[in-house]
């Protein structure tokens, strides 16, 4: 139980730090900044786990684990899950989610209703749908999965490896081209 409680506390500390940083600093690579903050909370978690008593001054005996290392590792796994499967996904959805952006556009429109043509122009807070594709291409260029040479986009060796892996998995799982 100690591991779980410290994991929850570390996760809350992590998201609080992310909020403070995003509010006071103009961060260009936000996902990388979030990852850095998460990594900084790991030594804090380990230190808190090592320096506090097994019962955290409040847990009943039946919630105290006899195997301290296993409980600590479990807490670390939960902390990592809450970050990678929780906060980072919330950020990804808010920053990159196509469907979510459509819902927000409709919600923020004056009459809270949009036709497909109006959504095409209003997408991304008025940037338009064409911007969405450019944003994804620029993202692939900045992560060096693709390069642009003489007006043509080419897969880098890293991009080719990713394409082989994901293409193979998509074919195996019978996933069709998404819309």
């Amino acid at each position, binding site marked *: 139980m100690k591991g779980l409680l410290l994991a929850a506390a570390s996760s809350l500390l992590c998201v609080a730090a992310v909020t403070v940083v995003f509010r006071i600093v103009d961060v260009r690579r936000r996902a990388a900044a979030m990852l850095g903050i998460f990594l900084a909370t790991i030594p804090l978690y380990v230190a808190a786990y090592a320096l506090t008593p097994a019962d955290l001054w409040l847990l009943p005996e039946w919630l105290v684990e006899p*195997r301290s290392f296993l409980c600590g590792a479990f807490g670390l796994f939960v902390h990592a899950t809450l970050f990678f499967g929780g906060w980072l996904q919330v950020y990804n959805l*808010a920053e990159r989610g196509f469907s979510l952006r459509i*819902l927000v556009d409709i919600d923020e429109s004056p009459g809270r*209703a949009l036709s497909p043509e109006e959504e095409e122009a209003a997408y991304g807070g008025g940037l338009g749908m064409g911007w969405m594709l450019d*944003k*994804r291409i620029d993202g692939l260029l900045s992560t060096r999965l693709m390069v642009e040479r003489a007006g043509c986009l080419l897969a880098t060796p890293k991009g080719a490896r990713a*394409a082989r892996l994901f293409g193979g998995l998509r074919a195996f799982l019978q996933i069709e081209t998404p819309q």
Partner: protein
Amino acid sequence: MNPDALGTAFGAGAAWTAAAVVVHFAIFHFARVEHRARTVTLLFALAAVATLWTCLLLDVDRWRAVYGMVVVACSFLLYMPFYYTLAASQSVQLVIEVRAAPHGLSREQIRRRYPVQETLAGRLETLAWAGYIVGVDGRFVLTFKGRLVSLPFRAIKKLWRLGPGG
């Protein structure tokens, strides 16, 4: 208290998670699945129940059995984003298509492959099918479910000072 109870619970959770992933791959490979996300969710839910059953069978106390189920829940939280990236990410699709083209693709060629109207129409159809929006007089409005999703994300975007996103 059995000192091995925690390890047994974690082992059961990890083993049933692995089983859920293997069954997921097998089902999707051999059958045409219509409700894909629901199927994966169901498989992990079954893995959680199986973990509880295994723990109780091995005399693990109920509290540690719940830890085993937490292992399955955490694995689900990590697996679903991976699956969605694989299944629905446009960036993944783009990099696959660019690699498949012998001389690469220009931005214009990519725009032709992903016509804006068709992409948007497809996504609006999906959102309507899932009950997030509904068509009224040629326009789309949010349903209650759609607003439930939109509102917290609008708040997060404001709190974290994110860009328009999308």
